[in-house]
C-alpha cells in the first residue's frame, strides 16, 4: 500500500521512464512478454494466453541510425519504435502488430528483418477500412489465426473462459481510466490532466492486474483528496501518437495559466475509451465488433458514405463533455492521415468557436518554441494583449 496519491502517480511515472526495466522484471517473474505496436492488437487474446502485452513506444532518444532502416520521410514515431527493436528490446518473447499505417508497418518490419524477430513476430491481418460489413468477418478470421498462433507458442488451447477473464480485466482497466479522466470534466479536480496522462501511458506498459490494483487505490485516495480548481484555460489535445509526457507537462506550466483536460490520441483515450461486451458467447466476434466500434485511428477511418469521418463525432462529443476552450492539434512530423484529418476537422472546430493550434511532434521537442506558441495561443483565447 502506498502512502498517498502522489506516490502512486510517481510510481506510474517511474514505469513510463523505465519501460525496459519494468518489462524485464515481468519476464524475470516468469511471464512471457510480447511487444505490440498500435492499438489494433487484441490484447485480450494475448492476455488470455498468459502473455503480457507491453506497448512499443518512442525512445525519445536521438536515432539517426534508423535512417538506414526506415526512410527519412516516415514519421518520427515509427523511427523511434523501430529504434527500440534495434537497440534495447531484444528480450521480448514476441512482437505483434495489426496492419496499421504504412509508417508503423515499417517499424514492425524493421524489428522483423533487422532486429532478429523474424521467428517471433506476428502480423495480424487487420483491415485498413474497418467500417464495412465484410471487414468485421475478416477481422474475426484474423483473430482466429492469431489465437491459433499463440496456442502453438504456449502449447495449450485458449478457452473462451480465458478470453472472458481477460476481457473482464481489460474492461476494468478501461472503466478505471475513464473514471480517472472524468475527474477532469469539472472545474475542480483532485488530479491534473498531465498526471492523468502519465497514468494512461503507464496502462499501456503494465501488466493489467497490477495496474488495475494500483489505479483503484489511486482513485480511492483521490476521492478523499481536496479538489483543486483546474486553473486557467482548458486545453484539449487531439492528434496522433504522443507519448512524450513533457508536452503535457509543459501545457500546465505555462507562464499564463492553462489546464489539460482531455487527450484524444492513440496513446491516450483512443486506447481505452470503449468496452468489450462480457456476456456474449462468440468471444472473438465480440472483441472484433468492439474494436471496430471504438474511436478509429485516422488511418483506418474511412466510413462509406460521403467522406465523413467517424472520429469527428467522438471529438465533438468530447468537446461537449469536457468543454475545452482550445484544442491543440498534435501530430507527428511526416504523418499523413493525421494532418489530413485536420483539414476537415478545423472547419468543425471553427463552427464550434473553438480555436486550435497545430504542433508538429518529432523525436525531440523544441520546448521553448512550443512554449512560446502555447502561451500565445492561451493569450489569444483569453483575449489578453500580451
Amino acid at each position: 500500500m502506498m502512502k498517498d496519491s502522489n506516490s502512486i502517480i510517481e510510481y506510474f511515472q517511474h514505469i513510463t521512464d523505465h519501460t525496459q526495466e519494468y518489462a524485464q522484471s515481468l519476464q524475470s517473474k516468469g511471464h512471457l512478454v510480447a511487444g505490440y505496436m498500435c492499438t489494433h492488437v487484441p490484447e485480450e487474446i494475448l492476455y488470455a494466453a498468459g502473455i503480457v502485452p507491453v506497448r512499443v513506444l518512442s525512445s525519445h532518444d536521438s536515432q539517426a541510425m534508423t535512417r538506414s532502416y526506415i526512410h527519412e520521410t516516415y514519421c518520427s514515431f515509427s523511427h523511434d519504435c523501430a529504434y527500440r527493436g534495434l537497440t534495447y528490446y531484444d528480450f521480448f518473447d514476441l512482437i505483434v502488430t495489426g496492419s496499421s499505417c504504412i509508417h508503423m508497418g515499417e517499424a514492425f518490419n524493421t524489428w522483423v528483418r533487422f532486429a532478429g524477430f523474424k521467428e517471433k513476430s506476428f502480423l495480424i491481418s487487420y483491415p485498413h477500412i474497418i467500417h464495412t460489413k465484410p471487414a468485421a468477418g475478416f477481422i474475426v478470421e484474423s483473430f482466429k489465426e492469431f489465437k491459433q498462433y499463440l496456442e502453438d507458442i504456449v502449447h495449450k488451447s485458449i478457452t473462451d473462459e480465458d478470453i472472458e477473464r481477460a476481457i473482464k480485466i481489460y474492461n476494468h482497466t478501461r472503466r478505471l481510466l475513464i473514471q480517472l479522466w472524468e475527474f477532469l470534466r469539472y472545474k475542480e479536480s483532485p488530479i491534473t490532466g498531465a498526471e492523468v496522462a502519465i497514468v494512461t501511458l503507464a496502462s499501456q506498459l503494465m501488466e493489467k492486474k497490477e495496474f488495475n490494483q494500483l489505479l483503484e487505490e489511486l482513485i480511492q485516495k483521490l476521492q478523499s483528496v481536496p479538489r483543486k480548481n483546474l486553473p486557467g484555460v482548458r486545453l484539449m489535445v487531439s492528434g496522433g501518437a504522443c507519448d512524450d509526457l513533457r508536452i503535457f507537462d509543459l501545457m500546465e506550466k505555462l507562464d499564463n495559466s492553462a489546464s489539460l483536460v482531455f487527450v484524444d490520441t492513440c496513446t491516450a483515450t483512443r486506447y481505452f475509451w470503449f468496452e468489450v461486451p462480457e456476456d456474449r458467447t462468440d468471444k472473438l466476434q465480440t472483441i472484433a465488433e468492439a474494436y471496430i466500434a471504438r474511436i478509429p485511428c485516422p488511418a483506418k477511418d474511412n466510413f462509406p458514405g460521403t467522406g465523413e469521418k467517424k472520429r469527428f463525432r467522438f471529438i465533438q462529443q468530447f468537446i461537449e463533455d469536457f468543454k475545452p476552450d482550445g484544442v491543440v492539434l498534435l501530430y507527428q512530423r511526416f504523418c499523413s492521415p493525421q494532418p489530413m484529418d485536420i483539414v476537415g476537422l478545423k472547419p468543425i472546430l471553427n463552427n464550434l468557436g473553438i480555436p486550435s493550434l497545430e504542433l508538429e511532434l518529432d523525436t525531440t521537442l523544441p520546448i521553448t518554441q512550443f512554449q512560446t506558441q502555447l502561451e500565445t495561443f492561451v493569450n489569444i483565447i483569453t483575449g489578453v494583449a500580451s
Partner: protein
Amino acid sequence: MNNRKLLAGIDAGHVNTKAVLMREEEILGYAVVPTGFNPADAAEKALNNALYNTGLPLSQLTGIVCTGIFGETINIPTLALVGSVPEHVADARGAFFLNKNSRTVIDIGGNITKAVHYDSNGGLLDVIQNDKCADGMGIFYSTMVKAFGVSEEELSELALKSTKNVSVAITCALSAESEAIDLLCQGVEITDVADAILRFIVQRVAAMCTTITLTQEIVVAGGLAKSKALMNHLPVLLKEDVKVLNLPEYVGAIGAVITCGGGKNE
C-alpha cells in the same frame, strides 16, 4: 631530379578547394581556400598558395590533375591539364596511398558525405553517398562554429567536456540547428549542445555506412576528421575501428595526382 614531374592535384569541392603539390609520390605542399562562386579562381588561388608555402616557382609545374565536384570546370589556361579524375576514384586512390592497409574511406565533406570501398590496389569497388536530407553536414558544422562564436577546434573541445546527454532533431541540419538553438534557449550547457551537434553528424554518417561493406582498415577523410569529438563518436556508432588520415582534407587532391602516376616519369 629535374626530369621528375611536379604535379598539382586540385580538388574543387562544394565548399573548399584544395591543392597539393607532388613529385614522385612525395607531398611537397598544400593549401586550401573557399571555393566561393568561381571554382577556377579558387583553384588558381589554392595552387598559388601551395606554391608559395613550398617556395617552388610556377615554372617548375608540369601540370594539374583535377577532381572534386567542380573538378571539370577548372581550367587554368597557363597550365596543362594532365588529367581529370572522378572524385570517388580520387578518394579511393588518395586514401589507399596515405594508408596502404586501408580498404574503406569515409569522406565527410562540406556538402556531401560518402563512403568508398576499394581493393588492395586502391581500385574503386563500391560507393555510398548521403541521402538528400543529410546534405551539408560540413556546412552545418561551420555554421554552428560561427553561431557559437568559437573555432572548429574549440567546438570539438566543448563537446568533449559534455556531461549530459541531450539530443537535437535528426532529420536534417536545419532541424538540428533549430533545436540546438532551442536547447541553448532552455539553458542547456553549451558543452552538451556541442556534443549533441557532433553526435547528430556522426549518426547521419554512420547510418549511411550501414548499407556498404565496411572493410578494415577504415579511414576518415575530410576536414571534419580533425574533430576529436567526432572521431570519438564514430567508432562507437560504426562498431568498427577508424583511423584519421594524415592531411584528411587533401585526400581527394592527393588521390587525383596518384591516379595520374603521382608525378613519376613514364
